[in-house]
């Protein structure tokens, strides 16, 4: 049975089915985005309640937002022209305009993806004195050296530790050439399996010697070293099957057998079963531990989420960031900011000069106002980008590097939704809008690539479908017309 009113209009409403359907849908979409815009307003109003939280203005690249706006406007025009082409029964012209529409959608998403990736790679660090340092974080791990003992809880034991040793061994800079720290497959010798307070003697339980790499060396000789970053990548590419294990009887164990051993220990009867399997590494390793991994740590040990504890010495505990901007609005006296202890003196001199210049300029232009009481003037004077003035050994320019001791870090994050409410609402709204762009592009693409059949059967039917698809596309454009000034310009 043919569905009525798919092409011809109903007599009472004068509308065909899809037309009333799409407008009902768009009405609900207005409420969806209206709710989010309303949320934005609440967050913006609420930001004023905290004098230390400065709603980020002019944070986004206006040029990219502007290009995206032009791209969507162009796509709106071309989708209308595609509909016009169908109404005039010009098939090839329809295909041309619809293709351009889809190309604009792809361009929009590419620019949006580029913007997002830049935000995800860019971070801010708030120091304990209120200074904010922006830039790219190079290194943000606790460095433990001389890690030579690990303890695996028997309950829920796994070989995550071995993955951990592979992934997080740190390239020790004070070792030339071959270095034990480069060797991720440390030879592990056994410790007696402990049962609570009572330690069993060696030999009472089967113990496991863990080695790794391409060749197992029972005498603990160093393996082929992995000297460079490239070699490190090669080390990372070793599959789990490359690990070899030898027990004290000289029998070769694979990873699965080692896991079974641990499981067997776990199945020992109560009273005999130890709470943990302690292993000693014959080659102490240096581990770079990402800060999110340990549930607890101190100067001599850290514990992972699965209960594995490693013992060594805390060697380094700082955050290494290439600084491209600083924000000292929350520092009462900018000359005393902790940032200046971390980067060359020349940046301080330049910052203070620029600050004073901009404040004086504002005061001259607005005699009745105090610059430091005006948010915009404060932002312009106290939030300053840095230039790439440092030259490295290869002659390349780069930003100054700050090694921030962890005890000076109050908070840090990449520019993701968790950083502040601005980014939360920005990613929510532009992300949802982007999903609508993708959805609309899929529908329009379907008309472009599979519409010929409908066109041949009933061209007016396809024209109606393209019209409703175009209505959705125009709505997506409307949302962006408001999003662009709100997010990028206000």
């Amino acid at each position, binding site marked *: 049975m043919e569905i009525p009113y798919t092409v011809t209009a109903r007599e009472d409403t004068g509308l065909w089915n899809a037309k009333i359907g799409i407008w009902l849908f768009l*009405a609900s979409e207005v*409420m969806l985005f209206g709710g989010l815009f309303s949320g934005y307003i*609440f967050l913006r109003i609420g930001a004023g309640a905290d004098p230390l939280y400065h709603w980020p203005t002019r944070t986004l690249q206006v040029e990219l937002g502007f290009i995206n706006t032009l791209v969507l*406007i162009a796509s709106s025009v071309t989708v209308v022209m595609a509909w016009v082409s169908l109404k005039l029964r010009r098939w090839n012209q329809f295909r041309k305009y619809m293709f351009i529409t889809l190309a604009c959608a792809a361009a929009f998403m590419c620019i949006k993806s580029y913007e997002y990736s830049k935000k995800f790679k860019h971070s801010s660090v708030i120091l304990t004195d209120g200074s904010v340092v922006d830039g790219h974080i190079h290194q943000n791990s606790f460095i433990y050296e001389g890690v030579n003992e690990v303890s695996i809880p028997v309950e829920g034991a796994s070989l995550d530790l071995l993955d951990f040793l592979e992934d997080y061994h740190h390239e020790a800079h004070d070792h030339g050439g071959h270095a034990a720290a480069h060797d991720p497959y440390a030879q592990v010798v056994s410790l007696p399996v402990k049962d609570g307070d009572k330690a069993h003697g060696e030999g009472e339980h089967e113990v496991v010697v863990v080695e790794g790499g391409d060749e197992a060396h029972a005498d603990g000789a160093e393996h082929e070293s992995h000297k460079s970053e490239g070699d490190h990548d090669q080390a990372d590419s070793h599959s789990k099957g490359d690990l070899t294990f030898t027990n004290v009887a000289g029998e070769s164990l694979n990873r699965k057998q080692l896991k079974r051993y641990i499981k067997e220990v776990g199945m020992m009867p109560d009273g005999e079963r130890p709470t943990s399997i302690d292993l000693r590494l014959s080659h102490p390793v240096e581990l770079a531990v990402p800060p999110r991994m340990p549930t607890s740590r101190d100067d001599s040990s850290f514990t992972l989420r699965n209960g594995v504890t490693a013992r060594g010495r805390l060697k380094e505990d700082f955050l290494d960031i290439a600084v491209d901007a600083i924000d000292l609005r929350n520092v009462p006296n900018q000359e005393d900011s902790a940032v200046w202890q971390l980067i060359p003196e020349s940046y301080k001199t330049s910052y203070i000069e620029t600050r004073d210049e901009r404040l004086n300029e504002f005061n001259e232009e607005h005699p009745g106002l105090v610059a430091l009481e005006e948010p915009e003037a404060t932002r312009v004077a106290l939030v300053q980008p840095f230039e790439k003035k440092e030259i490295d050994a290869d002659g390349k320019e780069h930003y100054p590097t700050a090694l921030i001791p962890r005890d000076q870090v109050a908070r840090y994050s990449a520019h993701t939704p968790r950083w502040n409410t601005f980014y939360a609402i920005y990613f929510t709204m532009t992300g949802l809008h982007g999903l609508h762009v993708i959805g609309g592009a899929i529908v329009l693409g379907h008309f472009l690539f599979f519409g010929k059949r409908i066109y041949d059967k009933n061209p007016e039917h396809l024209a109606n479908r393209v019209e409703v698809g175009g209505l959705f596309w*125009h709505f997506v454009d409307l949302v962006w017309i*408001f999003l662009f000034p709100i997010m990028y*310009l*206000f």
Partner: protein
Amino acid sequence: MADSPEEIEAHIKKYWMVGGILVLGTLLTVAVAKIKFFDLGGPGLTWEDIVLGLAIATTKTSFVVLIFMHMNNEKSLIYKVLMFTIVFVIGLFFLSYLAYVDPAVYDNFWNNE
């Protein structure tokens, strides 16, 4: 909404013109935000700047809705559906206004960024 091919042909030029107007409106929006001359009210973002920016955006939106989405000549049922939507949207944003005038809220909105 135009139905016959002749009517549709006659509207083609209008569609391209609206596209041009939208581009100009976007340029104007950026100029208003970036050029000091257009900084209404006091320095920085003030309610005058917000009203101007939203007025430009609303004008652009109107062109898209009326011309591209054919709302300048649509059937009455569509208008009735959208009337409900407009009422609810106004109610939704009225909540934001209520939050602004609520004395319990930090009463310094216009003086902050």
